């Protein structure tokens, strides 16, 4: 027993085992999120959602996965097959990789990089590539439109995404996510979402845009270009794209929680659970994911030019202005920084 635990300290084995655990978590999270999405949407729409498979419908993801495994993976005749099949992989891998740097609890992070925020930003940019590969590889007019819209949207919303992080970086004084979580104290009013409220809102909205959810789901555009870049996918390839979408939604929520809502810190000091603080992390991430779903089922979607206007003309100036405000306040009150 002791030798097994000693083995876990050895570096490559620790990384592999914890990465395997995180991958297991991500895949299960994607499946559970499909279920959560359907139940939340059902309850908002005055119905129950799936409630036949298993008690209260909790085994529905298992039924879904089983069905998708047994479905045929159709690909269009003229499609560029390597690009077509590589696109779901290119969409899923970034969503899974970012979990390596997310701190779940004190001393529970797979890879404690000191440039974790840069890592996060770089890896999420690869998602745009996956969208373009999917749309281009399908060789159909609808998917081409969806891919171009997706590329334009994801690239333009990365700018406010990154700019809104910079306030947090200035306040914490470090690019490491572990330091950012520790720098936010363990009381709810010292977390960064209050002093950085415009940045929090910008990061949240840009996060929704990066994940391509309503109101920014024009690349998928269900009512006009039915499925957009993923219109030609079926079976397991489609399931992988959906898993990528839900996994990236979970990743965005967890990074939002880490940067602005205190990560694994409890809201009040006496609620500290020690090494079990991942419970607080889980609760906060679930709350943010619930708000993603709540917004999805309440508002219509934006049109492309309105989406671009929002990104470039509203969010970018807001973040730039607040960046200067933060810098100015840090000069005036030197105790603000770390």
């Amino acid at each position, binding site marked *: 027993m002791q030798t097994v635990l000693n083995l876990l300290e050895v570096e490559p084995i620790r990384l592999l085992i914890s990465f395997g655990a995180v991958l297991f978590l991500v895949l299960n999270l994607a499946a559970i999120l499909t279920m959560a999405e359907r139940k939340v949407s059902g309850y908002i729409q005055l119905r129950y959602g799936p409630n036949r498979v298993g008690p209260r419908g909790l085994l529905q993801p298992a039924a879904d996965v089983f069905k998708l495994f047994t479905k045929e993976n159709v690909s269009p005749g003229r499609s560029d097959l390597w690009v077509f099949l590589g696109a779901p992989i290119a969409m899923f891998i970034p969503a899974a990789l970012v979990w390596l740097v997310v701190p779940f609890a004190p001393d529970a992070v797979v890879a404690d990089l000191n440039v974790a925020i840069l890592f996060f930003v770089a890896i999420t940019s690869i998602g745009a590539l996956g969208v373009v590969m999917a749309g281009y590889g399908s060789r159909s007019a609808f998917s081409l*439109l969806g891919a171009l819209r997706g590329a334009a949207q994801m690239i333009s919303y990365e700018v406010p995404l990154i700019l809104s992080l910079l306030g947090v970086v200035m306040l914490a004084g470090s690019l490491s996510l572990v330091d950012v979580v520790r720098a936010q104290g363990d009381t709810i009013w010292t977390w960064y979402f209050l002093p950085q409220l415009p940045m929090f809102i910008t990061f949240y909205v840009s996060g929704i845009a990066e994940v391509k959810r309503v109101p920014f789901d024009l690349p998928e555009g269900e*009512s006009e270009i039915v499925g957009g870049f993923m219109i030609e996918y079926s079976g397991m390839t489609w399931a992988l794209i959906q898993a990528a979408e839900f996994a990236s939604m979970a990743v965005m929520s967890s990074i939002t929680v880490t940067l602005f809502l205190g990560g694994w810190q409890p809201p009040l000091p006496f609620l500290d659970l020690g090494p079990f603080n991942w419970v607080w992390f889980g609760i906060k991430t679930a709350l943010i994911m619930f708000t993603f779903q709540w917004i999805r089922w309440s508002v219509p979607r934006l*049109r492309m*030019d*309105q989406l671009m*206007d929002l990104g470039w003309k509203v969010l970018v100036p807001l973040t730039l202005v607040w960046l200067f405000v933060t810098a100015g306040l840090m000069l005036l009150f030197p105790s603000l920084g770390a």
Partner: protein
Amino acid sequence: MLGEERRAGHEGALTEPPSSRLVSPDIRDEFGLETIDMNMGPQHPAMHGLLRLILELDGETVVRCDPVMGYLHRCQEKIAENRMYPAVIPMTDRLDYFANMHNEHGYCLAVEDLLDVEIPPRAEYIRVLMCELMRLASHIPSIGFLMLELGAFTPILYAFRERERIQSIFEAVTGARMMFHYIRIGGVKADLPPDIPQKIWDYVESLEAHFKRDFVDLIEDNEIFISRTRNVGKMTQEQAVEMGVTGPALRCTGVDFDIRLDYPYSVYPELQFEVITDTAGDVEASYRVRIGECLQSIQIIKQCLEQMPEGEVLGDTGRRIRPAEGEGFGRIESPRGEFAVHVVSDGSDTPYRVHYRDPSFCNMQLLQEIVPGHYLPDIMPIMGLIDPVSGGWDK
């Protein structure tokens, strides 16, 4: 006029007219730009039925939009030539399947124009009551479909909750939830069951109570809805009248034309209601006109329930309906516009010719005129303005 005070100061997202976004073909050739020919085909989840749109796109701007209809054509007008007059009524149910009562009413008015049967007053009131309930059951899902195509998935479920409740009232009165076969030549088939007037009254009161919360608060002030629908599909009055548009699509441009008041039929002269118009002529205006018409329908239903006289419900048409030679014409205000039926009789048991003037068919001309210059995602709100039903345009 609705909406004028709301628009002051908030132009919305489209400040320049859509057609100015169209690049002229010479400039396109000079720069070597091409357009994409795309097909929003008959298989589409949001096409209001089976409509094929042949689009020519310049990037995201629509240059040309040609609707191709006929995927649901069932030869109703031809089949009606082989059916006896009362047996055509179940077929008219299936024309515009969101407004069945109106179709039956229009056909029966046309045939009663050929005969000289006297319709009892109670039957007239019941007909108007059923038609106004049907108008509610049609306008509320229309709003839901508009929101569904804009991307909001919940208002349609709230809308169908209302439609289900109205359909259960219809089931108690007529026996079926959708294809009623209730309005007959000379009256209606059977009287209302004794507990139905109270049920209708209770339902209408409860609808009035939560109508604002579910269909107005959720949608009207939503900034995304306003940006997607204000100044989109903008029509002038001249354009609308020239294309023969009727119904809420016409009234949202400001033309005050409603068959119930201009060519009155049945007991509408005895009921008090207003015609809702809006000046803007865009999709948001049509949404507002439909909301206003729902509220007016609720008032009409209440008045019908209060004023309904006692009596029988089916006039005496004789054993066989065999009108003399001639033509009969009946026109009514269906939720989509003017629905008119022209029946030509040659003295036998079956009509010589039945022609339906369906509002969905005539309003579809708007697509070819209005859409060029808009973006591709704008086609769906414009379909929400026209609100066609595929059984209507294809017959």
